[in-house]
């Protein structure tokens, strides 16, 4: 009887160690499905256990997007910080565009332009995509079928977000009605033509 309990514990302990090693070996997040393939269906509980084990340590187990990864603790950032290379600094346009895609996704380029009031210059969407932060989403089923843009799991990982719900102030902005991506005015930026629906504005671009 006692032996059985011990052996079940040992199996569990072994799985925990394997899970830990798998996550530790990888620099990129591993999704739960992949891990379940190696560990078994109890991986969810084991991940929570591991997260709790590491919570007080200098390395944390974090959930980001679809996956899990070990990352240095966020509170150590001031000591560990490495300044970004100057060449990698993003333009203001790129930073704002990323925020708009993150908060308004899926969002068309015409909508981004309506929000910013300027056309999107080169070196904006392509740079964000090169960083692996955004990717094309589904086409909008409106006239012209414009392409939409969405953020990636790597975006969540990079900014330490578990999900899009954790975007700063996202609920407040939604409640305030500020996540409406409709073009509003004539004469502003990309939506110069009369655009009663968002789709109509997009169709100009496609």
């Amino acid at each position: 009887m006692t032996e059985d309990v011990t052996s079940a514990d040992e199996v569990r302990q072994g799985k925990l160690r394997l899970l830990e090693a798998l996550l530790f070996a990888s620099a990129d997040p591993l999704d739960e499905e992949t891990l379940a393939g190696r560990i078994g269906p109890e991986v969810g509980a084991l991940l929570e256990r591991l997260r709790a084990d590491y919570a007080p340590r200098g390395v944390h187990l974090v959930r980001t997007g679809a996956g899990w990864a070990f990352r240095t603790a966020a509170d150590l950032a001031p000591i560990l910080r490495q300044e970004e290379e100057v060449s990698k600094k993003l333009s203001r346009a790129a930073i704002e565009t990323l925020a708009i895609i993150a908060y308004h996704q899926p969002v068309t380029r015409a909508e981004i332009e309506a929000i910013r009031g300027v056309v999107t210059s080169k070196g904006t969407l392509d740079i964000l995509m090169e960083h692996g932060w955004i990717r094309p989403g589904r086409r909008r089923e409106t006239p012209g079928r414009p392409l939409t843009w969405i953020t990636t799991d790597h975006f969540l990982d990079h900014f330490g977000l578990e999900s899009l719900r954790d975007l700063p102030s996202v609920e407040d902005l939604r409640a305030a009605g500020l996540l409406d991506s409709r073009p509003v005015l004539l004469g502003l930026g990309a939506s110069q033509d009369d655009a009663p629906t968002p789709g109509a504005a997009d169709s100009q671009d496609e």
Partner: protein
Amino acid sequence: MTADLFGADPGPEVDPGQLLLVLDGFEGPLDVLLVLGRDQKVDLTRISILALADQYLAFIDEARELRLELAADYLVMAAWLAYLKSRLLIPEPEDEEPSGEDMAAALAFQLQRLEAMKTAAQALFARPRLGQDVFARGAPEDIDIRRKSVYEVTLYDLLRAYGDHRKRQEGGVLRIQPVRLYSLEDAVRRLSDLLGHMPDWATLASFLPAEEGSLLTRSAMAAHFAATLELAKAGQVELRQDSAFAPIFLRRATRDGSD
């Protein structure tokens, strides 16, 4: 929330003259309006659109006085704001058009939305970032348990490859941007005007416009030279060149044809 987003930092007081100095730093007319709006030191939900329109129109006037080249969308915004202003000042006609109040509210909303996104962008980039504040395992071990992707190819790589390919294919199709050149007609008009103020011989070079850009300068030289020939043919100027490659002099033709 609203107060946090919009009331926190009204920013320094900006007058249109100062704004012009940093025109390059703006991301279009809406961005300018936002900076002007912050200058009113109220939260954007209570902003005076009428005052904002006046500020923006003053800004555009000043830019024009300084002969700064403004992109078309700055002028479109100015025209739109002038229209909005007239709609706000005169009694609303009973028709299908959106009312001035509605238009003003829509503009205020757009400014709030842009401000919200700027604030959100700051909050986002203030977060601890991977590779800068938070770090992944520095020495990942070569164990890829995700069998399906042996090759490291991202959608970006794929699209970039296709874009590069298309770029090579489209190499033959030139889209030539309009080139600013000095026309003969411009030069004739300009020389005719200037000659009135030139009592005596002057070099052709002294008539050339002092504008930047080698191509424009060279085309101006050619256009003015051709213009002098046209004007000489018409009997309006006299030309003189002392030797080959020497400066060309010109003056207004004297009426009696002597000299």
